[in-house]
């Protein structure tokens, strides 16, 4: 089976699962929605982390910024935002169905755009940092943005914002958000996969392999790096907007900027599946989410200890991840041709 055919059938499986599972087991809709969110996070993280070698610990900032941007738009088209937040949710705003949908769609688009613009502004500064400095800097950035938002009274500060309530039937709300996250996740993967096939994809791979040489070859590294960060920002921003509406109540530290949960999950998932591979982050996210949902509630506290242990074991003993390992083992399946002469076994045979 060629690599492209394999990809095509994987998309088929994912889409079929995405449609069938909520149909056959409607009770699992919201858990499946989170699954798609996880897939989106892992896949978009991998674009800079895996393919470009810039390991961000702060992509969650885009998620929260998108969430807050959409909240401001959605409330702002009907009511004065400052007044709404100053009342700590004591004001109940009735949205007409039409206002709700306009607000939601505008909000999602706006969330994506604001997050992208944010990446564009801070990108040139943050992406100038190399290696671990970038990771620490982005972690600091995410925490700083979260703290600043929680001190900013216009958006309600630490008391958060109650989002507009979904009009219509009870179950239909979670279905709509499910579909939105599902479409976003698939779209993100398709777009990012398409990008990898272009010159742009080669350029960011070159940056990962040796940035100075890439620059010497005439690649405008900063431009490429910032653009490559704006793509995850766009999708994370939109996903944040959807997730905020799905949660119903948003608040800076736990919902919008969960650095210690979602912010780390996305890295862990991408590493588990295999960072720098097209399907690794998807596989990692699905495995991680299923294991988490099945075992999490039964472990009572130990799940977090286990999470720390999993990250350590993963990074120390199994760094290439599941697909990374498979790719080393069966390179032809992944459309990778190996120059036998440069591998160790190849050299050994040549020596003979």
């Amino acid at each position: 089976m060629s690599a492209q055919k394999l990809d095509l059938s994987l998309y088929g499986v994912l889409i079929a699962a995405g449609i069938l599972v909520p149909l056959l087991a409607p009770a699992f809709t919201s858990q499946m929605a989170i699954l798609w969110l996880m897939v989106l996070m892992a896949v978009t993280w991998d674009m800079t982390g895996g393919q470009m070698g810039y390991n961000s610990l702060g992509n969650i900032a885009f998620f929260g910024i998108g969430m807050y941007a959409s909240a401001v738009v959605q409330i702002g088209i009907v009511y004065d935002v400052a007044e709404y937040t100053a009342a700590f949710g004591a004001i109940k705003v009735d949205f007409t169905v039409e206002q709700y949908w306009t607000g939601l769609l505008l909000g999602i688009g706006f969330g994506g755009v604001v997050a992208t613009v944010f990446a564009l502004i801070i990108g040139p500064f943050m992406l100038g940092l190399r290696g671990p400095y970038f990771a620490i800097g982005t972690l600091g950035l995410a925490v700083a943005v979260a703290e600043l938002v929680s001190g900013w009274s216009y958006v309600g500060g630490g008391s958060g914002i109650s989002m507009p309530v979904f009009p219509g039937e009870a179950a239909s709300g979670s279905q709509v958000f499910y579909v939105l996250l599902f479409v976003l996740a698939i779209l993100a993967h398709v777009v990012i996969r398409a990008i990898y096939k272009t010159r742009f994809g080669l350029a960011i791979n070159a940056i990962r392999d040796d940035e100075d040489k890439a620059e010497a070859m005439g690649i405008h590294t900063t431009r490429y790096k910032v653009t490559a960060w704006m793509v995850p920002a766009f999708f994370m921003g939109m996903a944040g907007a959807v997730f905020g509406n799905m949660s119903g109540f948003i608040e800076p530290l736990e919902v919008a900027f969960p650095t210690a949960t979602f912010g780390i999950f996305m890295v862990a998932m991408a590493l588990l599946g295999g960072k720098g591979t097209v399907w690794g982050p998807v596989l990692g996210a699905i495995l991680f989410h299923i294991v988490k949902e099945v075992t999490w509630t039964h472990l009572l506290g130990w799940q977090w200890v286990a999470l720390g242990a999993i990250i350590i074991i993963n990074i120390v003993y199994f760094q290439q991840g599941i697909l990374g390992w498979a790719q080393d083992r069966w390179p032809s399946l992944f459309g990778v041709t190996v120059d036998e002469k440069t591998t160790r076994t190849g050299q050994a045979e040549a020596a003979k």
Partner: protein
Amino acid sequence: MFDNISILFQAPIFAVDLLVQGLLIGGIFVLAAYGLALVWGVMNVKNLAQGDMVILGGYVAYQCTLWGIHPILALPIAFVVLFVLGWGVYAAIIRRVVDRDMFTSLLATFGLSLLIQQALNLRFGPEVKIAEAGFGTFDIGELSIPAIRFVGLGLAAVLAICIVLFMRNSRMGQAIRATSQDPRAARVLGINTDQVYAFTYALNAAICGAAGVLVAMIWNIQPFYGLVHSIRAFIIVTAAGLGNLPGVIVAGFGLGVWENYSGFIFGAEFAVAAVVGLLVVVLMVRLFQMYRLRQVVR
């Protein structure tokens, strides 16, 4: 904000108060930052679990007070406990990431940090804990300063001097310095670098543990407070540069003072943001310095 600044000008005694309190707390920041500079410089490991080791040391002190041991006496206990633990962590995890790319060590220690936090949370619960030393308060004119802050600074100074002397004079200290200069040459000259690394990491953990005892006596501890301590250590080391002990000391005290003043002027809601924001600023400054350097090279 401007009201708050004007208070400082109208009643300068409070400006002095904030300055003194900030300097006193800065000593502890210096300790944790020195430990980080050590592992960073010698073995090139970015220890994101730094703050969590500090908090772990604090819980050792808290546990000692539960057993009826005075928290000051818990200082050597925490030092030893964390030393052993640090050695264990090195053998299990760090040994395998020393030679890898630097993000690996960062992420591995991040996992370690989660592990420590959550284990502490399971054992001690999420409420804040204090190891009460019961020293009362010093009154100097209008200033009232908790005596424990002076004691803490004194202990930090004694510990720092001991460590510096150890690094200068002992065989192990010399081996550590040699390894940090050129690990390959050190190996050729018969230094067991693996052991040196293990010792360095364990020593860092021990220093953090001692700093944690001071934090538990002066402030308070909670399983999830580690990250801010880690960020502080990173700010100080990044601002001072590696291998610059006086720089670490100045930056540490400066950070303590900055925290108190920014909390006073911007309001407590921006206290953490002010610390973390400073990290981003320091990194940016370093970045521009590097750009300048690159232009010169060109």
